[in-house]
């Protein structure tokens, strides 16, 4: 189980694997444009944080393939369950890019949150690993109703230490819930190396104990991520049950904008891994295939910059909400008196906000 599935080579000593069946030139370009959009979002968000326009931000620079790859394998009916690291994943499902920016600007309510049923994207999960059971429950429920959809749930290597990971894996296997457990093993949980999370050599082998199959893929290779997810989904949709995918990679960036990794790891090691980062590597591969040229690459970058420029404008057009935002969305039913009393303690002219 230590083998790692990769498709994209290095254009030199490591040859490219066979081009995956079922991916047209157009599809490959689409995956590439997703990688570029995610990269652009991430770099833009880090810049906004440095300028004090958004708060602390956990960047995913280098992990774009683990997001675009598996998502491209999904149908629109499938549900996505991001961890806090995939906080922009919704933009690949039609969520305005300003929404995850507003969330990071510290604005909730209708600005920074969204209706998960609209996009089939759950709210991002901050407490590590605790969303895995939700992904199982939804997929299990759909299966009970004979609906063919699956859950794709992302989590890190650190998350595999939490009890919720194990409980979710077990439920999914026992009830044959169509769930793709997508573990981004970037080998770090803040300052803690993966060797401190588990004594097994791989994350993938944990699947054996739950009675589900697993595969390890190159987490810097979007096509490997796509291909494994596609196979896992085909199996899950036909009643085969859950699947664990371990996307082996490396956290190329700091844990977040407040983190300084030189305090706890050898940054020369991070620099060596950086050669594998997925955007440049995929671009080179697509050029070898003759699918990408300068013009197309430029077009993808331009489109992404435009989307982000608009998103930043939209973000900044939102005024600071008034205190009503604390109270109004707390319950699905009418506000209990305890909340109305709290809200009415604010001067009326503040409540709507805008200051």
């Amino acid at each position: 189980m230590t083998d790692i599935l990769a498709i994209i080579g290095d254009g030199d000593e490591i040859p490219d694997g066979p081009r995956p069946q079922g991916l047209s030139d157009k599809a490959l370009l689409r995956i590439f444009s997703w990688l570029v959009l995610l990269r652009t979002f991430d770099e833009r968000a880090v810049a906004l944080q440095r300028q004090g326009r958004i708060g602390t931000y956990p960047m995913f620079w280098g992990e774009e393939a683990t997001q675009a790859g598996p998502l491209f394998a999904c149908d629109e009916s499938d549900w996505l369950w991001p961890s806090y690291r995939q906080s922009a994943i919704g933009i690949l499902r039609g969520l305005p890019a300003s929404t995850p920016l507003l969330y990071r600007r510290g604005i909730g309510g209708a600005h920074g949150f969204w209706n998960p049923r609209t996009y089939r994207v759950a709210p991002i999960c901050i407490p590590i690993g605790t969303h895995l059971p939700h992904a199982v429950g939804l997929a299990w429920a759909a299966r009970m109703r004979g609906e063919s959809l699956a859950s794709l749930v992302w989590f890190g290597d650190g998350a595999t230490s939490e009890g919720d990971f194990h409980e979710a894996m077990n439920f999914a296997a026992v009830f044959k819930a169509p769930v793709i457990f997508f573990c981004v093993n970037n080998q770090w949980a803040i300052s803690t190396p993966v060797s401190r999370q588990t004594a097994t050599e791989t994350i993938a082998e944990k699947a054996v104990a739950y009675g589900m199959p697993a595969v390890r893929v190159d987490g810097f290779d979007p096509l490997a991520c796509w291909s494994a997810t596609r196979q896992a989904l085909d199996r899950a949709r036909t009643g085969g049950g859950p699947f664990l995918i371990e996307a082996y990679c490396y956290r190329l960036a700091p844990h977040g904008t407040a983190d300084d990794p030189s305090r706890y790891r050898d940054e020369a090691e991070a620099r060596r891994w950086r050669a594998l980062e997925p955007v440049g590597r995929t671009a080179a591969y697509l050029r070898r295939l003759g699918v990408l040229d300068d013009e197309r690459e430029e077009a993808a970058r331009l489109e992404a910059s435009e989307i982000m420029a608009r998103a930043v404008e939209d973000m900044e057009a939102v005024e600071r909400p008034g205190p009503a935002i604390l109270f109004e969305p707390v319950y699905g039913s009418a506000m209990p008196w305890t909340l109305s009393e709290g809200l009415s303690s604010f001067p009326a002219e503040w409540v709507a906000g805008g200051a």
Partner: protein
Amino acid sequence: MVEGLNLALDQAMAADDRVLVMGEDVARTGGVFRVTAGLLDKYGDDRVIDTPLAEAGIVGTAIGMAVYGLLPVIEIQFDTFVYPGFEQIVVHAARYAWRTRGEVPASIVVRIPFGGGVRAPELHSDSPEALFAHVPGLKVVCPSTPEDARDMLLAAIEHPDPVIFMEPKRIYRAGRQDFPEEPPFDISSADGVTTDYLSKARIARSGHDLALISYGATVPACMEAAERLSSERGVDARVVDLRSLYPLDVDTLVDAATACGRAVVVHEAPRTAGLGAEVSSLIHERAMLDLEAPVGRVTGFDVPFPQFINEDDYIPSVDRILAGCNKVLDW
């Protein structure tokens, strides 16, 4: 306060080889708030331990270590992340003494940086202290000064019972204070002394017109409110820093209410079933006839802690505290 906490850990580890520190990212980086900085180099990785990312595992194994005879001090990275360890705290840590004829209490300290006001991301700002104060078998404390942080943490470590040690992260780096570096008691024979540091409120400001009762990060706000009451209306407020949230220092509370005749409780946590309800109830039960007005409460609202752009709407400000005081004064 961070330095005070670090000093307490250092002094306890130096004096008592049963003490060890564990949690997520506490060793190599010294914790996300740097409270455990430097300890790894001094005491080695058997006593300063980066754990897997699993709060139930951290609390649960700490309980096992305590049953063996060690004194683990564990760090929960942020308030909200204690919840996966809640079962271990409530069911096991809290009841070990009870289920072992009082002979083997789970002598652990659970350090929890808590509360808002630092522009943190969502779910990094909860105030869950009332959840713990409600659980029989736990001691729950919260310092608001660097010196108390040091003294109370030392006492918590040497104390037989499990202590939930709430650290108000908003004032982690506020209010430098000089205090004697020497531990306040002899660590090698702390038996019986530790309870004093874990059960008594502190009079942070003396006064006879109004008792302002609080703990943690809202204590400095109450001090400021008290100064303004004095200059704006000539009201002399006594500020009581609870320090111990369970058990409450009932004598100090009743004294303050009796002496002042009016009292206001302030905390950041949501109002319903919060510490304010307990304090208010105690005062009404024991000092009713000395009161000029019902006890007031200035608290967070019954809502999830908001996203940070709105956190100042949630956290009791000096103005809100003043408004609460004026209501009680004008009753």
